[in-house]
């Protein structure tokens, strides 16, 4: 059994609306080993959720379409599988949990039914065994009195509890990979920490690899081994958490770091935002997608698209000025940046 679980190569996803084509994901590549965690970060619309959803081939089609690349998962190319083969992977080998636990559970079925359904779909077990397994799963994700709560409907659970149920459903078939699409964003801060702790604990128990989609770098530092920074459908930086935490290279990553709420934020050092807004993905972008918002951009950035280049050990960035030979020094925050934030 090879250590490598997932290898995504040059993934491209497009959405068509009328005559306009939106390149939501434009050449994303990364690898993930067994029991490893990768964080995909970026602001909304950067293509991180689309990337994750396309791994399960669940892009609504039409209008969406995986237009290029390959997804190798556990020795299979997912893009070449039949829909039937794909179904046996979904919820079984790859599971997914979503952002809003309030809406991602079906309100008209009991939580028990929803877990049992997942088990029965992929395993040849009796209803009774499946129910036993479901109760076990609920206990495992920390739901008190699971024998009783299994017959309750989602609206009888709190947000955090519902996310625990989602995790129970996702892990009920021992998946090799769990995709978590902003699983804590919709939750209270205290509950967020509990859910993250739970995921870490269950990962040890189930030996699952996790793809964590988030805009919260704090979650990434805490949970992940690797990180993929996405901007406007492109990967701008990719490497181990250790490397990127210590030495972030891409100006967009710097911007992301500056805009995070951290303990060190003080009154006289206000939060920064990245000026401007992401480009319109319906238009062909020549050059670096971040150029228009980048404080370091030069002429070349608007004409040539930078390639992913190795900038450190297992660390890649797509910036003309960040290579092994070249180095860009991070500027101090300028008065200009601050003015934008405070205005």
């Amino acid at each position: 059994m090879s250590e490598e679980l997932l290898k995504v190569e040059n993934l491209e996803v497009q959405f068509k609306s009328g005559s306009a084509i939106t390149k939501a994901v434009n050449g994303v590549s990364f690898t993930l080993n067994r029991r490893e965690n990768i964080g995909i970060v970026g602001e909304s619309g950067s293509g991180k959720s689309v990337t994750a959803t396309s791994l399960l081939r669940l892009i609504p089609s039409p209008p969406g379409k995986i237009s290029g690349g390959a997804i190798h998962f556990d020795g299979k190319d997912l893009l070449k599988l039949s829909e039937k083969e794909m179904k046996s992977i979904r919820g079984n080998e790859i599971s997914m949990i979503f952002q809003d636990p309030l809406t991602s559970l079906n309100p008209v079925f009991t939580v028990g039914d929803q877990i049992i359904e997942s088990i029965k779909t992929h395993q040849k077990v009796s209803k009774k065994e499946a129910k036993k397994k479901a109760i076990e799963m609920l206990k495992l994700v920390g739901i008190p009195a699971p024998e009783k709560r299994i017959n309750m409907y989602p609206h009888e659970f709190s947000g955090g509890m519902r996310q625990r149920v989602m995790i129970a459903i996702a892990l009920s078939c021992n998946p090799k990979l769990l995709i978590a699409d902003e699983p804590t964003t919709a939750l209270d801060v205290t509950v967020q920490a509990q859910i993250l702790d739970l995921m870490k604990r269950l990962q040890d128990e189930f030996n699952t690899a996790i793809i964590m989609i988030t805009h919260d770098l704090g979650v990434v530092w805490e949970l992940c081994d690797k990180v993929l920074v996405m901007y406007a459908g492109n990967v701008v930086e990719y490497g181990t958490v250790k490397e990127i935490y210590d030495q972030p290279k891409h100006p967009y990553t710097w911007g992301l770091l500056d805009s995070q709420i951290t303990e060190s934020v003080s009154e006289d050092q206000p939060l920064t935002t990245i000026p401007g807004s992401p480009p319109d993905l319906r238009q062909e972008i020549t050059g670096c997608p971040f150029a228009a918002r980048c404080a370091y951009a030069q002429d070349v950035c608007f004409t040539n698209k930078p390639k992913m280049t190795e900038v450190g050990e297992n660390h890649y960035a797509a910036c003309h000025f960040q290579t092994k030979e070249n180095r860009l020094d991070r500027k101090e925050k300028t008065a200009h940046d601050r003015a934008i934030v405070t205005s």
Partner: protein
Amino acid sequence: MGKYIVGRILNMIPTLLIVAIIVFLITRLLPGNPAAVMLGPQASAADIKALTEELGLNQPLYIQFVDYIGNLLQGDLGNSLTYNKPVIDLILERFPNTVILAVCALIISIVIGVPAGIIAARKQNSIFDYLFTTFSLIGVSMPIFWLGIMLVLFFSVNLGWFPATGMGSMEAGAGDFFSHLILPSIALATIPTAQFARITRSSMLEVISQDYVKTARSKGLSEFIVICKHAFKNALTPLLTVLGLQVSSMLGGAVLTETIFSWPGIGLLIIDAIGKRDFVVVQNMVIFIALIYVVVNLVVDILYKVVNPRIKYSSNKGGS
């Protein structure tokens, strides 16, 4: 749940009382002496006087009302002079025929309307969807008495496939029974089919984009289960509302359908009784139909709770 049902049944009583008051008021709107109208212009003064007394029409209005409500509560719907029978016997005789027709039409409308709506929602903006939208619009706009006539013209007069009027009997064979049933059922089913289809489509469209449908797909369920189990059960609530309304309009539509096809149900009986000016029959049949409507809506309300666990049981909701 039991408490809720009892509450709802108690809630029916004032509505039914008002129904009875409305019908009482309408029949008393009749200009002149109802007895004279019922007996027609040739009746003798003595006959009119006798009937007036028999119907209690010589009493003050409030006594008439109290008697009338009292009789209703005892289940005494009075006697028909023109049919020489208690009204209750007429109902027992005719109502099953209407039920056969209505149930058949309801089955047709659900079996065709609901799947068509689901498919149209799944294939939004396709050619099927456009055809669907056109046909369902024509369906809801259909004057069913005209449709009935056209069905007779086409299938009975021109093609000779089905009999134009009357009801078959099982003794004459199932073929006879169903060949009589088919045209009136289609006529009566047209509007509900289109309504079910439209509501199914719009509520499925709303549900299909919900997160829990995405969850269901991510669990590896087949598309059929995702749509017909996870999505459809959530789309049921608006469908049930329409079901309640459709049963009411089908009871109304039955009057027209039965008239066209001479189907011996309560609709034909009412029109017949109006022609014979038998107001005892008309008045009580109308109350009976309103009762059916109220009961059907009670059942629909209870089904609501079964389908939608989020609705809390409470008995202080308004009437039908």
